[in-house]
C-alpha cells in the first residue's frame, strides 16, 4: 500500500502542476511530458534536471505570453517534441536501464527513488496547501479568474505566469528524476502526463477546490486500480 501512496502523491503533484498551468498560466502545458522525460534521463543529476526544467518552463512562457490558450497549447506540444528529439539525439539508446535500490518499509518492499520522489511530492503538497489556505492565495485566485481584473488589482500577471510555468517545469523535472526509474525511454513522460491530465480534467470541474480534488482523485483512482480493476 505504501508504493500506491507514493504513486498517488507523485501523480497528485503532476495533476496540480497541469491544473496550475491551465488555470493560472492559461495553457494546457503539454511540454510537461517531455520535461518529465528530461528529468528521468538526467536522474544522475537532479539539480541539473531541475534547472533545465525551470529553463524549459521559462522558454515556454516567453514564447507563448502573447498567444491565446489554443495556440499556446500547440506551441507547448512543439516544445515537448523538440525536447524529446534532443534527448533522442543525445542519449541515442532505445532504453536506459537504471539500478534501483529496494527499501523495506513496514514489511513492504519499496523502490528507494520512489520513496524520495514521494517525500518531495508530499513536501510540495504541504507547502502548496499552506499557501492556498493563507491570505496570499488571493493573488492566485484573482489571476485564475481573469488577467485583466488581476492587472486592475495591481498584480503583474505576466510575472505570475512566468513563475508558475518555470516552477512547475522545475518541480516536474525534479520529481521525475527520482520517480521515473528502472527503465527510461523517450516517451515515458507522456504516460505520466496523460494520467495526470485525466485527474486534472475531472478535478477542474470543482473550480476553487480543484487542487484538493486532484489529490483525492489520484488517491482514489490508484486505490481502485489496486483493489478492483
Amino acid at each position, binding site marked *: 500500500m505504501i*508504493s*500506491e501512496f507514493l*504513486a498517488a502523491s507523485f*501523480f497528485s503533484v503532476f495533476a496540480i502542476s497541469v491544473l496550475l498551468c491551465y488555470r493560472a498560466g492559461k495553457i494546457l502545458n503539454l511540454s510537461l511530458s517531455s520535461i518529465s522525460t528530461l528529468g528521468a534521463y538526467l536522474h544522475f543529476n537532479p539539480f541539473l534536471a531541475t534547472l533545465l526544467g525551470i529553463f524549459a518552463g521559462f522558454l515556454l512562457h516567453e514564447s507563448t505570453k502573447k498567444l491565446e490558450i489554443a495556440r499556446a497549447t500547440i506551441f507547448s506540444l512543439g516544445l515537448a*517534441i523538440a525536447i524529446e528529439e534532443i534527448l*533522442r539525439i543525445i542519449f*541515442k*539508446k*532505445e*532504453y536506459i*536501464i*537504471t*539500478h*534501483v535500490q*529496494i527499501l523495506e518499509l513496514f514489511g513492504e*518492499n519499496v*523502490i528507494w527513488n520512489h520513496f524520495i520522489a514521494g517525500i518531495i511530492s508530499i513536501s510540495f503538497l504541504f507547502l502548496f496547501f499552506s499557501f492556498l489556505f493563507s491570505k496570499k492565495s488571493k493573488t492566485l485566485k484573482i489571476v485564475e479568474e481573469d488577467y485583466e481584473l488581476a492587472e486592475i488589482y495591481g498584480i503583474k500577471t505576466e510575472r505570475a505566469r512566468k513563475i508558475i510555468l518555470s516552477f512547475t517545469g522545475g518541480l516536474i523535472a525534479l520529481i521525475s528524476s527520482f520517480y521515473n526509474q*528502472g*527503465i527510461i*525511454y*523517450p*516517451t*515515458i513522460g*507522456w*504516460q*505520466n502526463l*496523460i*494520467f495526470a491530465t*485525466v485527474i486534472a480534467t475531472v478535478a477542474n470541474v470543482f473550480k476553487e477546490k480543484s487542487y484538493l480534488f486532484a489529490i483525492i482523485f489520484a488517491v482514489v483512482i*490508484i486505490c481502485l*486500480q*489496486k483493489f478492483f*480493476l
Partner: protein
Amino acid sequence: MRWFLLFLTILAVILFLGCTAEEKKEVKIGVLIPKTGEFSSAGVVMENAAKLAEKHAKEIFGINVKIIIADCGDKPETTKAAFMSLSQQGVVAVVGAYSSPQSLIAADTAKELKLVYIASVASADLEGKVKEGNRYVFRNAYNTTYWGVLATEFLEISNASSYYLIGFDPLRTFNAALFNYVKNNTKAEFKGEAWYKSPSIAPEDYKKAVASAIASGAEVVILGDPGPTSVSVVREFAMRSGKATIYSVGGTLALPYVLKNLSVNNVAFQAAAMEGQEKTNLTKRYFEDYRSIFKEDANNYAGILTYDAIMIVAQAASKGDPVEQLEKGSFIGAAGIYSFDENHQAKWGSEKLKGSLGIFRDGKIEILR
C-alpha cells in the same frame, strides 16, 4: 596519332564503365517507422536496422538500395498517409509499421496502390487479406500461431508442470491468440491469467497481475508485453521474491543489455535470431555492425526483421517483378532463409527459418535453441 587513338580507347573504356555503373539500377524501398507516438522506442531500432540493411545490401549483394523512411506514428490513419507519401516517391515496395491495426491498413493501401508491402513486425491476420485476393501483402515476421509455438516449445524445453499468463491489454488481440494457442497445445497445467492496462491509464496496474501470478504458484509465467512495462513487471516480480521463470514474448526483454542491467535470473525470451548464432552469413554481420555503428546491442526482433524485410525486397526486386519473385523465390536474411507460403506468410518453423529461445541466468544469456 597512335597516342591519340590510345587515349580515345582508354576514354571510351572509362566512359563505358562509367555508364554501366550509372545504369546499375537503384532500388528504392520505403520503410514505415513509428518515429513518433507509443511505439517510438521500437522506431529507433527499426530505423537503425533499416540504415544498416541499406549499407549491407550494397556491400554484400551489390544491390544499390536506397531506403526512404516515413513516420507512420502509432495509428492506422498516419500509417496510410505515410504509405501514400512513400508510393509517390517511386519505391518498389514498402516494409515496416509496428502494430496490427497499422499493418492491416498498410495491407489495404498496398492493394489499392498495387505496391508490395512486407509487414516486418505485426502479427495481425494478413493471411486473410491474401485469401481475399490481396497479392501485394507479405509478412516476414511471425504470425500469431508461431508466437504460440515458441511459447509452447519453451514450456516443453523447461519441463514446466504449470504456467500462468500475463497479458498486456493494448495488445489484447495478439496476446489472446497467443494464449489460446498455448492453452490448446501444452500438457502443462494452466494456473490462470491476468491482464494489465497501459501505464497511461493505470500506472500501477501491472503490480496486481504480478501478485496474482506469484500467488498461483505456477512454474512459468508467460508475459505477453513486448514493451518497456515488461521490465517493471520483472522487477516487481523479483521484489516480491517470485520464484517462477518468466517467459517473455521478446521485445524489450530480449535485449542483452536490458537483461544484464536488470540482472534478474531466469528471464527467458524468444528472438528471431540471437548474437552468437550463425543462421546465415548475415547474422554475425548484423549484430557486429549494428553494435559498431550504433554503439548498442542489436535488437533481435523488430530491428532484425525490418533489416531482413529490406534485404528480401532488395533481392526480389533485383531479379524482376517483386510479387512474382517473392511468391516463388527464397531470400537470405539475418534470421534465416525466407520463403513465403501460399498466404504470403514467411515459413517460420521450417528447417531454414526458426525462432530462437534464450534465457538469462547467472549474469549471462544462454541460447536454448
